[in-house]
């Protein structure tokens, strides 16, 4: 069970997404999940063992590390990616439910090609439109919340080289040095930019869906007349 399983589940949703949705999914998996797994995890791999404080006092390093990094960047990103991907599951569940209903209706009356049914694409209209739009809305909310949490927790997006710690049992104020601060800052800014791009894509997709819906609605009364 790993990111590959998540990709399999979300890949199924991809068929029924808009073009912007497909681009979003590609950006998510290539520029976020893959970067996290192949690069960022190595950079943060030795974060605590290479976090050095200028004291021999046992326990001081542990306490200072815990004080400055309540939740590691890597874990926050992993949680962000999971939460941001989850709304797409709502769409996957809705589609699965519709397929199931269709199967139930058709198997009673005629022979059905299961493969054909599974490959059938559902258009984003009606209740599926609402599910899809809600999922995009939640994605935007989760992205924004995580970006805000990052900002608040780490006082900005820069990783400092030196931290001054005076938490007990450290005697007085102690200098603590973060390992690979520049590399970590670069990755933080990279992940932040990609989050921003994903958010923009989600906003654009939402606008596109709303405009599409509004354009369809006035046409209906016109056709009735």
């Amino acid at each position, binding site marked *: *069970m790993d990111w590959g399983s998540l990709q399999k589940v979300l890949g199924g949703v991809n068929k029924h997404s808009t073009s912007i949705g497909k681009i979003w999914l590609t950006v998510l998996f290539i520029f976020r999940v893959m970067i996290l797994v192949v690069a960022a995890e190595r950079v943060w791999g030795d974060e605590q063992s290479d976090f050095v404080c200028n004291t021999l006092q046992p326990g001081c390093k*542990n306490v200072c590390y815990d004080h400055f990094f309540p939740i590691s960047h890597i874990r926050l990103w992993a949680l962000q990616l999971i939460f941001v991907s989850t709304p797409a599951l709502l769409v996957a569940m809705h589609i699965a439910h519709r397929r199931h209903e269709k199967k139930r209706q058709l198997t009673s009356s005629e022979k059905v090609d299961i493969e054909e049914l599974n490959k059938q694409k559902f258009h984003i209209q009606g209740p599926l439109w609402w599910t899809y739009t809600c999922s995009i809305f939640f994605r935007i909310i989760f992205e924004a919340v995580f970006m805000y949490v990052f900002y608040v927790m780490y006082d900005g997006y820069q990783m400092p080289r030196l931290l001054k710690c005076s938490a007990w049992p450290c005697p007085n104020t102690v200098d603590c040095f973060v390992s690979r601060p520049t590399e970590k800052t670069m990755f933080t800014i990279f992940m932040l930019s990609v989050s921003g791009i994903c958010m923009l894509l989600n906003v654009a997709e939402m606008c596109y869906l709303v405009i599409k819906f509004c354009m369809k609605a006035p046409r209906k009364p016109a056709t009735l007349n």
Partner: protein
Amino acid sequence: MSWGFLRDILSGVNKYSTGIGRIWLAIVFIFRLLVYVVAAEHVWKDEQKEFECNIRQPGCENVCFDHFFPVSQIRLWALQLIMVSTPSLLVVLHVAYRKSREKRHKQKLYKNPGSMDGGLLFTYLISLIFKTGFEIGFLVLFYKLYGGFNVPRLVKCDMRPCPNTVDCYISKPTEKKVFLYFVVVTSCLCIVLNVSELSYLIFKYTIKCCLQRYDKKVQIMKSECQKLKYIDPDETARTALFHSNASPVLVNTPDKPESKTYLLTREEDKNDIA
């Protein structure tokens, strides 16, 4: 053999679950299993190496770590995930048993081996009860073993061979606390889903049962009415039938010798309905 194996087995359960069961499965896969593998495991990776005591006495750190963490939280979490997912396999086994039975007898014994009725419903309800029991059991175990879900920064240890009381520092306590709360929240959510599914199934099948009994009663009464229609149409007989309720009715046409006589009594009614 890894989590992928469990995932593959559980994916098979999806087919035979209700809607709530599928949501439960999605929560277990995404918010518990995936979070465990990609995030939580790394937090507890070096827990003993980074557990530091303010002492140079050899063996003191080991003993203190063992005293405060008899079973590591991450191992308890893994056990919980396995135990909570396993009851669902009862359903898969029961469906497999049904299919093999059909094969053996070479005839259709069930309307659909995967449909939830009779024995399979009972198995499903049992699996829900076990799942809920395991969830609650593990939450209680977590609470009892670690004195709540809090992970302190500092623990004071006075086990031999540590001289006097020694300060020991746990690594990444805040991060561990956050993930423990995550475990608690997802467990509680799963308990709520299991209980709702249990209530829904019991309610649905009770209503179905009652409706079936009511239908049966109506059908019996209809068939009784149809039996009476075969009586030789005689005005007195018809009026006697329409106006009497449970009292014995004698339908008799003594003028025509071939006519049949029907006597409806309370005992007959009772027998028919039973």
